């Protein structure tokens, strides 16, 4: 089976699974089972893909006659490459774990089948983005993902908060996509083709279709779209609200799709991005602000699920920052590697907290206190997930974060990009991340003071997940520990990192974790950092960005809309009504004139006719 066949199947299979699942919606459990089986088949396929993946510089794409739309060529090609195969594998794995978990978590939900179908479609869209060698295909996958996230976040549509969160997520990302679409439109129009290779050839060479400033502007537009989808500053606020969705949806959105897709797209466009300094500065500064701010907010959350959400924002900023600072020799692979490892450990963390929340009945830190004692696996999974999140050496997250640090350092000394700022932000973020990871650990594994876990088990007969879920969690835990071995396969093109970086991060992590450890006396370490009730509320509301969106964007647009509606009714349509009214008045006069029917009027008309006839005769007299 060639790598190309694998990539076609990886895109096609989830689509078919989504259709089948939707068709079987009347028997939800069977439908979910079909979705799970298809996702397991995808995992097998993706594993085959790892073995048949082409080696570096040997990316293969299909050759077929492109569709010609006027002057624009649309080849609609899929491709395969080494890093692509690795990313596809982790997407397939996470999707399968999420579906397995969903079958247990949403067992009694009347829309289980619709949920499973949407997850499958979501996976297909992400696979399309990963394998696309055509910017239109990228855009299709990108937008379909946005739509699926709308459906998943709003899954519990009987709750107003879920409806609002879904609306907000779609609108915020769609507004940012104005930039994404325009950037792609500009690149495509300049290259005369939507094919990725044609676009890269046209725009990365010395003779671009337009000035370098235009290239930078177009890439900056693409970057804006990526910032929106990846929940980066200033678009970050939709993601914590998206926690209204069921936890498996969060695991999927955060770990392997949606927010991570921006990294994949920019990695594909990297040969152009590296020449677009303006876009790199934009990306670098936005991610630097985001990673520090989101990490600080994570520390202050009263809800642990929202803590994880903010940690995603921060981690995605880290992977994107690697793209902003990487030099041409380093390439995009450090970013993709961090995306890979983040997918593994973040899905583990989300699925674990989904389980714990079923046990505790809530995701609030207060309620989750000591919930980890329910099962040994929960404790281990939570511990290793957090270790990877904090970037401890040797676990998967630690390795990849170190490579990002090295990339930023090389960028800072090697080229003029935003490397220095990003490097400084990264170092601060490492400390903060360690602090909130430690906090999350302390809260969940606190010794129980109240009821015994067995009593909790009686309250929640479904508190114990099925064996399949436990197996999925175990697989993810093992991968979190040993996933770094993927570097041996050479699928990611990554240089060695020096030991000194490891020592430095270890030092920073112990500072951050130590501070949290010292603050544990008050119960939740957060209380030592965020002391007043007002500040806690502010942190929970994400510094009030929601209000800012409403005041600065939504309200003015709605105000303008009211003005336009008024103008349309009273001015534009006013002329029309005026014309109709004057026609009516003229008709009324004519009717009155006729009604009189007096002989004098008739004589008058005949006289008028004679005058006209005579006038015509005179004028045409030759």
């Amino acid at each position, binding site marked *: 089976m060639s790598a190309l066949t694998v990539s076609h199947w990886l895109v096609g299979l989830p689509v078919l699974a989504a259709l089948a699942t939707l068709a079987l919606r009347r028997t939800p459990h069977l439908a979910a089972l079909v979705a799970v089986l298809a996702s397991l088949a995808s995992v097998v396929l993706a594993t085959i893909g790892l073995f048949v993946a082409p080696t570096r510089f040997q990316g293969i794409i299909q050759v077929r006659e492109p569709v010609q739309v*006027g002057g624009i060529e649309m080849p609609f090609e899929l491709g395969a490459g080494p890093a692509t195969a690795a990313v596809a594998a982790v997407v397939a794995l996470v999707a399968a774990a999420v579906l397995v978990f969903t079958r247990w978590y949403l067992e009694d939900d009347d829309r289980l089948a619709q949920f499973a179908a949407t997850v499958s479609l979501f996976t297909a869209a992400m696979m399309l983005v990963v394998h696309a060698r055509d910017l239109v295909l990228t855009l299709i996958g990108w937008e379909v993902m946005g739509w699926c996230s709308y459906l998943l976040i709003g899954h519990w549509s009987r709750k107003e908060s879920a409806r609002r969160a879904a609306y907000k997520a779609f*609108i915020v990302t*769609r507004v940012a996509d104005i930039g994404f*679409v325009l950037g792609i439109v500009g690149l495509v129009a300049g290259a005369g083709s939507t094919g990725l290779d044609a676009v890269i050839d046209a725009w990365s060479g010395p003779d671009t279709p337009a000035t370098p400033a235009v290239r930078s502007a177009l890439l900056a537009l693409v970057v804006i779209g990526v910032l929106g989808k990846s929940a980066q500053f200033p678009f970050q606020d939709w993601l914590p609200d998206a926690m209204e969705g069921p936890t498996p949806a969060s695991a999927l959105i955060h770990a392997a799709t949606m927010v991570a897709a921006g990294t994949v797209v920019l990695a594909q466009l990297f040969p152009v991005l590296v020449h677009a300094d303006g876009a790199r500065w934009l990306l670098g500064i936005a991610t630097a602000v985001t990673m520090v701010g989101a990490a600080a907010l994570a520390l202050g959350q009263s809800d642990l699920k929202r803590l994880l959400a903010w940690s995603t924002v921060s981690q995605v900023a880290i992977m994107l920052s690697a793209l902003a600072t990487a030099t041409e020799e380093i390439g995009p692979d450090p970013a993709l590697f961090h995306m890979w490892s983040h997918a593994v450990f973040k899905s583990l963390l989300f699925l674990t907290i989904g389980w714990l929340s079923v046990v505790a009945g809530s995701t609030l830190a207060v309620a989750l206190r000591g919930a980890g004692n329910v099962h040994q696996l929960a404790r281990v999974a939570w511990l290793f997930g957090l270790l990877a999140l904090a970037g401890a050496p040797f676990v998967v997250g630690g390795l990849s974060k170190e490579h990002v640090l090295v990339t930023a350092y090389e960028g800072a000394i090697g080229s003029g990009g935003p490397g220095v700022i990003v490097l400084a932000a990264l170092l601060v973020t490492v400390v903060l991340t360690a602090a909130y990871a430690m906090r999350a650990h302390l809260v969940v594994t606190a010794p129980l003071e109240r009821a015994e876990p067995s009593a909790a088990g009686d309250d929640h007969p479904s508190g114990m997940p099925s064996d399949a879920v436990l197996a999925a969690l175990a697989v993810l835990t093992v991968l979190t520990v040993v996933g770094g071995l993927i570097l041996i396969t050479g699928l990611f093109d990554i240089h060695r990192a020096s030991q000194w970086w490891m020592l430095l991060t270890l030092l920073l992590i112990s500072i951050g974790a130590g501070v949290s450890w010292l603050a544990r006396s008050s119960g939740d370490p957060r209380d030592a950092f965020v002391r007043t009730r007002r500040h806690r509320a502010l942190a929970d509301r994400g510094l009030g960005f929601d209000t800012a969106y409403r005041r600065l964007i939504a309200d003015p647009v709605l105000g*303008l809309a009211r003005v336009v509606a008024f103008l349309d009714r009273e001015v534009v349509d006013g002329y*029309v009504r005026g014309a*109709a009214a004057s026609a009516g008045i003229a008709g009324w006069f004519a009717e009155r004139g006729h009604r009189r029917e007096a002989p004098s009027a008739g004589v008058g008309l005949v006289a008028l006719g004679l005058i006209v006839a005579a006038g015509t005769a005179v004028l045409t007299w030759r």
Partner: protein
Amino acid sequence: MALIAMLVVPGAVGLWLMTGGRALDVATARVIALVAAVVGGAAAVVASAQRPVIDRAWIPDLGVRWHFEIDGISAPLVALTAVIGVLVVAHAWAEQPWLDASGGERGSAATYLGALLLVVTGAFAAFSARDAVLFFIAFEVVLVPMWVLIGRYGDPHSEAKRADASARFILYTAIGSTLMLVGILLLVWQAGTADFAELPAAAADLSLGQQTLIATLLTLGLAVKVPVFPLHTWLPAAHTTAPTAGSVLLAAVLLKLGTYGLVRLPLANVPDGFSRIAPVLAIAGVIGILWGGLICLVERDLKRLIAFSSVAHMGFVVLALASGTETGVQAALIGNIAHGVISALLFVIVGGLKHRWGSVDLAIVRPALREVSPRLGFALILGLAAGLGLPGLAGFWGEFVALVAPWNPAQHTGILRTCAVIAAVGAALAAAYSLRVARIVWVGDEVSADAPHRAADTRGLELAVVAVLGAAVVAIGVAPVIVWSVTADAVSALVGGAP
């Protein structure tokens, strides 16, 4: 033969139903009309595939000929009309506009069905006419039955609204038609022929001033029909009042006549004049996109909202045409077809809702469709997703290529690129208003089984109509090549043939 059948069968049956068969009972009239629509539609599809020609002299003095032929540009539109024609007649089983609000008879069912068939016939004739004067006549034939549909069979709740909407429709479009007629006569008189095949070459010798004048007249006249901002105000009134089938015909067939006319007349025959007024057209189109989108954010009547979203969507089509390139025309044609299918779907659903609820005021809280009628809800969300330009559904291709085309236009690069940027902002507005509707109508709190105002789910022929339109939305979205492969050669001949 197919061409004759396509024009004669629905035309003759429609005329007979409106005159001799007026007293026919409902059941018979419906069957006869459906048979006529199916035969005419089948003939139209055959004719689109075989491309036969009818060519007879008609008014030799003017050089006007009785010349019908389907080419690549009109074939998808003829097919669209054929499908929509069958669907609107079939929809007469689901909704009976000849009954008044209380269920009493207020008009003849046969007349209603005849009017539907005549609109379809007129559209077939307009799309297949290869002669400028013939095109104009066919274009006008559509208006009267449409006026009957709006004025006699419109919203049963308000007679004043019906009178206003139908009068506005007929007067507005008649003024547009008059301008277009002057333009056509000027063109035909100057060029000395009315045949579309010979016109471009014959009109090439005209001076730039004459070209601009003719292009302005033609574009103005057709812009009313499209409609282009600020000539759009007849549309929301007509849509709100018309019966569901009338709205569908209006959106899917009549508006298409406007854009088709823009391609066929000014763009093909007086390209230099057209490119001089193109920036104005582009700006009007872009204002329409924003204008329609903004109004949709606050509009309370769902039918008016869909009508304003039509204004926004046609803005994309007009923008693509204004670029004057092959890519632009391709974008406009697929955008045209896509809008026809999507808005037809939405109007069938919203018309159905109005039928069930009595009004479609968004300010009234009603049980969510997702809870009480999942099939109708699914169709609605599909239509809304397509309307906001979701890839994989029909709306995406027209919008995306309509943004690409003005990036490298034939002329006026600066203005058109700015327009493309603003149009992209308008696309985000589409998301905002589509999901606003979804949030109000589709999703909502849990509904108890005995709640009032539960909308019955769609079934029977209404379900069939919705399913066909939904399938078309997906098919065009997944494989836009179906349309592009048909239009490609004709478009390159049309645009490439220009000097």
